[in-house]
């Protein structure tokens, strides 16, 4: 390769990376600058005393506290539903599936990964209508259906990261483990899954982020502007991304818009916190498996 080509690749890739990082920092800086000033107990709890709100003694109407609780419940419920199913499907794809069955399921997973979230939301909405009809109006769009919809949305990512993480285990290791007298199931649960844990956790973290930010899917399946702190799986709920969407589309003045930036900043902090927590769990898991 000629010198100018090497220089072009070297400085071109550096420039593109710099451009992307600049965009990221500009975006984060913009949110922090615009939303940082609004961060206060009033943004979270409105007129209600923080302790009363945190102990669920008094309902919060003005602040973002119910939306934060709703987002946390939604994220935890969705990931709890998606993770076991996604990991088990990933295991099946990487270790047991062969031939046409493997190709068909891989195609299904890839197709599902490419489906826009609004379409998955419509599927959830149809499911909610079906339940509404079957239960004579007792069940409609709610937290559980929204969580199920998000679980369907993030499951392809979890399946793929699990499959890829397990596929990176080399043939030599597999031979060694077989030679130790392990059955295929023992090998997976005692050796391969602990070895692939970091990759699977990364898939889980991406799923967390997707569940926390997706608005289209939950708009059709149960989220509302005012519902208070979620009290039941079959109840309506509030969520931060929907709160941001509502403020951004209906704000009437700069103060209200600043509240939207504040909500966006809180969502970023929440996601950062969840990512950090996942990283700590992954780190802890790495030290335990030794």
């Amino acid at each position, binding site marked *: 390769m000629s010198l100018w080509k090497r220089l072009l690749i070297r400085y071109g890739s550096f420039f593109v990376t710099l451009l992307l990082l600049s965009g990221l920092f500009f975006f984060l800086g913009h949110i922090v600058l615009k939303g940082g000033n609004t961060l206060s107990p009033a943004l979270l709890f409105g007129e209600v005393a923080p302790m009363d709100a945190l102990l669920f003694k008094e309902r919060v109407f003005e602040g973002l506290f119910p939306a934060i609780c709703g987002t946390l419940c939604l994220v935890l419920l969705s990931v709890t539903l998606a993770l076991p199913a996604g990991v088990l499907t990933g295991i099946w794809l990487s270790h047991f599936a062969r031939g046409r069955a493997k190709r068909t399921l891989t195609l299904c997973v890839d197709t599902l990964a490419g489906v826009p979230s609004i379409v998955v939301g419509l599927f959830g909405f149809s499911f909610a209508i079906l339940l509404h009809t079957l239960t004579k109006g007792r069940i409609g769009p709610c937290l559980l259906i929204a969580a199920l919809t998000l679980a369907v949305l993030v499951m392809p990512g979890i399946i793929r990261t699990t499959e890829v993480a397990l596929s990176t285990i080399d043939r030599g290791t597999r031979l060694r483990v*077989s*030679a130790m007298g*392990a059955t295929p199931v023992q090998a997976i649960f005692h050796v391969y899954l602990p070895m692939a844990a970091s990759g699977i956790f990364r898939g889980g973290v991406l799923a967390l982020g997707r569940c926390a930010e997706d608005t289209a899917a939950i708009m059709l399946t149960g989220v509302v502007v005012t519902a208070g702190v979620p009290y039941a799986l079959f109840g309506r709920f509030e969520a931060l991304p929907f709160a941001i969407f509502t403020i951004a589309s209906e704000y009437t003045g700069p103060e209200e818009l600043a509240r939207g930036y504040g909500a966006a900043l809180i969502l970023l902090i929440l996601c950062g916190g969840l990512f950090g927590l996942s990283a700590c769990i992954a780190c802890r898991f790495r030290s335990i498996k030794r």
Partner: protein
Amino acid sequence: MKITFDTLTFRYGTHTLLKDISMEVPQGALTALTGPSGEGKSSLLSVINHLWQPEDGVRITGSAVAQFKGGAVDLLSPHLNLPLLRQKVAMVFQNPTPLPFSIFKNVSLPLTFAGIRDQKKIHQRVERALTRAGLWDEVNHRLKHPAATLSGGQQQRLAMARALVTNPEILLLDEPTSSLDAESRNGIEAQLLELKKSCTLLLVSHSEDQVDRLADRIYRLDQGHLERQG
């Protein structure tokens, strides 16, 4: 605890790797298998603990029988209980790369696979295996440390301890000292001479000197044909 091959032929796709192999690996002795690279020595080992897969295009004909304490086992039977067979026939690979776990877990895993849950028993068996492999004194104070922190020679002895922890009747060794320095190699060889008293050993080695030093019986594999040399 002996192995007998009779007119064994090992085909990989259209390539015949081993042709009409007949040999006996006697009990309580160290049998060595030597010869040029790529002639099928490791494939012959894989027949004994059934590490070959028909799905990979492997076809084996002839007869391969292992005589254990509990009776004879047809090693080519499609109905073999593989986990049980591999508890009786352990293997040490050429590359000792340990699993990314602690020293203790690396050695105790075969016991977990064998369904042993009693922690006291597991600790006793791990200590015994590490002692038999000549590693206990060097690692007993750091059993929870990652196995990757051990030196090359120690990792190979760890692999031997892992193979010995289920008290196998047959131990297969695929060039276990090829990547080690002279001191580590001498340590492993001393352990092998000790193990000969309790195990049937089959050693694959390129080193003529090593084979002469250790083996009670020597076979040479060349161009798919086996020949007894000593």
